[in-house]
């Protein structure tokens, strides 16, 4: 899992991409919409004929990986440094550190039996902050499940996270979904769906809806390289291409699908290489370089909206965390491998080095922020634990817009029962009507 083939010379403009690559951009609509079968066939065969059989080998040269910073946080090509002033990179860093702190505490709380499930984002922080910062707040997000940082960036508070994981009365989901299955209409973040990759065709459908109603919004959908093996992924790529939808397919290629390493997941050149087969443009970036992710997402967004077309963006990263609280990754990967990524290719450290070198951050601020982050998380944690459970009647609502008679009857029956035997129920821990 070494990202060793970097590209850092691309000019950052759509015009440049259009002139120097992305041939499918220029081919675009014209031929297929002509409706002339002979012309379509001519185009598909590209007018090239051979009289000897040759296998077409998979391309030997892998798609290069774009990066802006080297492993130590030094900008490689000044022209690629995002021009967003000092505030945003500092905010990105603070968010990463806060996310890490929250992850560690909630992960432990599962071990203590306080919540049923959790998974962390350690090692993939740059894919979250880099992409989230490049989007507009009204762009719609379909996440897989390891994208808490995107929500944090959008303004989901620590209390929101904790309340969801605890399923307490302040959980907007009213305790109906398992931990980490966040959702927020206000933040344009669709409630997570557990079965892998179902979010991919749904994202395309939402993008189609935006296109049809002329809304200048795009959809970003996150998924792992493991989820890309699901049939839904194929369907989504193909539909996005044929229906011409403004959607960014953001693949977090983090090396593992639970215990299955990516070299057992696919044999070709990753997920980005599949794009050509669908007639989709692709970008591959160093997912541990927050600026590379930012630049790539920004240009992908611009392209998706300008052409009403999809982009496949593959961010090469590494899942430092276990898959979730359900597994122990020491059973399937070496400690040395993990150590390499934690110490030498760490997205948080890389951004920190960048900030330190520019005097945008100091060790003193580091200590202060670490203390503050821990305090904020622990306070939110304590608040979440002490909050009431949602009204138990929530169990019956939102199955349909209107509660059906049989559920209404059952709810009423339960109300009467609880009223009669109230001394046997911990009613004080539930929110009242």
């Amino acid at each position: 899992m070494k990202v060793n083939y970097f590209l850092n010379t691309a000019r950052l403009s759509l015009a440049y991409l259009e002139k120097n690559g992305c041939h499918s951009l220029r081919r675009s609509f014209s031929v297929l919409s002509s409706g002339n079968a002979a012309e379509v066939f001519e185009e598909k065969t590209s007018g090239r004929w051979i009289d000897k059989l040759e296998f077409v080998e998979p391309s030997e040269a892998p798609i290069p990986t774009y990066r802006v910073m080297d492993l130590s946080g030094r900008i490689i090509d000044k022209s690629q440094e995002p021009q967003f002033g000092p505030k945003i990179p500092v905010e990105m860093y603070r968010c990463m550190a806060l996310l890490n702190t929250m992850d560690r505490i909630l992960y432990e709380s599962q071990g203590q039996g306080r919540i049923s499930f959790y998974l962390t984002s350690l090692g993939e922080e740059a894919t979250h902050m880099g992409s989230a910062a490049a989007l507009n707040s009204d762009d719609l997000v379909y996440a897989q499940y390891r994208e808490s940082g995107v929500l944090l960036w959008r303004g989901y508070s620590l209390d929101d996270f904790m309340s969801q994981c605890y399923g307490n009365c302040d959980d907007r989901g009213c305790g109906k979904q398992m931990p980490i299955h966040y959702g927020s209409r206000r933040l344009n973040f669709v409630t997570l769906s557990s079965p892998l990759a179902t979010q991919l065709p749904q994202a395309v459908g939402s993008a189609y809806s935006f296109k049809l109603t002329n809304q200048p919004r795009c959809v970003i959908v996150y998924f792992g390289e493991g989820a890309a093996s699901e049939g839904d992924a194929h369907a989504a790529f193909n539909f996005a291409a044929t229906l011409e939808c403004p959607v960014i397919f953001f693949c977090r290629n983090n090396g593992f699908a639970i215990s299955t390493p990516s070299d057992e997941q696919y044999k070709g050149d990753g997920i980005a290489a599949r794009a050509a087969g669908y007639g989709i443009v692709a970008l591959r970036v160093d997912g541990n370089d927050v600026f590379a992710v930012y630049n790539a997402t920004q240009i992908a967004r611009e392209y998706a909206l300008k052409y009403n077309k999809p982009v496949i963006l593959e961010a090469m990263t590494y899942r430092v965390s276990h898959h979730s609280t359900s597994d122990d990754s020491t059973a399937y990967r070496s400690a040395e491998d993990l150590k390499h990524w934690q110490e030498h290719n760490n997205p948080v450290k890389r951004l920190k080095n960048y900030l330190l070198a520019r005097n945008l951050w100091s060790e003193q601020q580091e200590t202060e922020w670490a203390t503050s982050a821990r305090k904020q998380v622990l306070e939110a944690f304590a608040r979440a634990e002490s909050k009431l459970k949602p009204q138990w009647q929530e169990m019956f609502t939102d199955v349909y817009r209107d509660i059906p008679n049989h559920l209404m009857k059952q709810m009423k029956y339960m109300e009467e029962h609880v009223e009669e035997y109230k001394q046997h129920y911990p009613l004080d821990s539930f929110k009242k009507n």
Partner: protein
Amino acid sequence: MMVVISPSKMLLKKAAKLLSNRAFSSSQALNAKQMTVRDALNSALDEEMAKDDRVVLLGEEVALYDGAYKVSRGLWKKYGDKRVIDTPITEMGFAGIAVGAAMAGLRPICEFMTFNFSMQAIDQVINSAAKTFYMSAGMINVPIVFRGPNGAAAGVAAQHSQCFGAWYSHCPGLKVISPYNSEDCKGLLKAAIRDPDPVVFLENELLYGSSYPMSDEALSNEFVLEIGKAKVERAGDHITIVAHSKAVETGLDAAKLLAGEGIECEVINLRSLRPLDVNSVCKSVAKTNHLVTIEGGWPQCGIGSEICARIMESETFYHLDSPVIRVTGADVPTPYTKSLEGLAFPQPADVVTAVKKVLGVK
């Protein structure tokens, strides 16, 4: 105690005898305009697309080719390829697209070429469409209609001939409609499209070309039927026959045969499987004290089973004078060859036998 009657050759012979004596009654049909089920569905789609530009239709062959069964005839020409969308051949793909489009504010109608192929999209239908409103605690609703032909067809064997009524009606979060005639199809499809919840709309492949009378009211643009209400298609005092989809016709045919022998059947068309209008069934059974259910689906955990269970759990149980009998499809994958295919699904003669058994009449 419930007895499942499966069709047999002996019954078919009896049926042939009875059919030769039967008197056709068509007075009701002559008074109203006739319309095919296909045209009724088409007019429902057309009227709702004209009324609400968030309504889009997608699926395989629905646009240029007018749909594999021509239900969407003329709609692509009228509404264009942004609203009538031919998709690549991936059921889970276009079902997922429809779910996502619904989440983002459209009101998609997702056509499965037949419901047999909806199995390839089952995760999107059950795990996403049906559950998202609940999982998001009401934040995201999925106003979508999954529609297409369902049930036994002719000569297409096991993978193209089966009823998914019981399958889908099992799942909370979905509404499931199984219409019988043209009026049902028009009024209920319009209701399904307007509904805020996901609806599975099970058309019957064998009935597309059948014509049924349409009242002036049913012909109007404003005609909508309430989801979850059964309809008494024929009144009678001796026994209640409950059915959905094409089996309603089987029930009505049997009722005509039995009327010739002095047995008056009350035939109830369920129209909707979820919500299931058990009250209408109970009301009828309280009057007739006898019940037979008919369905094209398999017996185990079927719609008939559900009706029996609900009756067992209610006061209506005490109104029954004898055990209920379910007449269902045979408990085998649908065979291809014509002689076997006919035996695999309820025929009027099977219903006649079941009714007589319930009533203790020889």
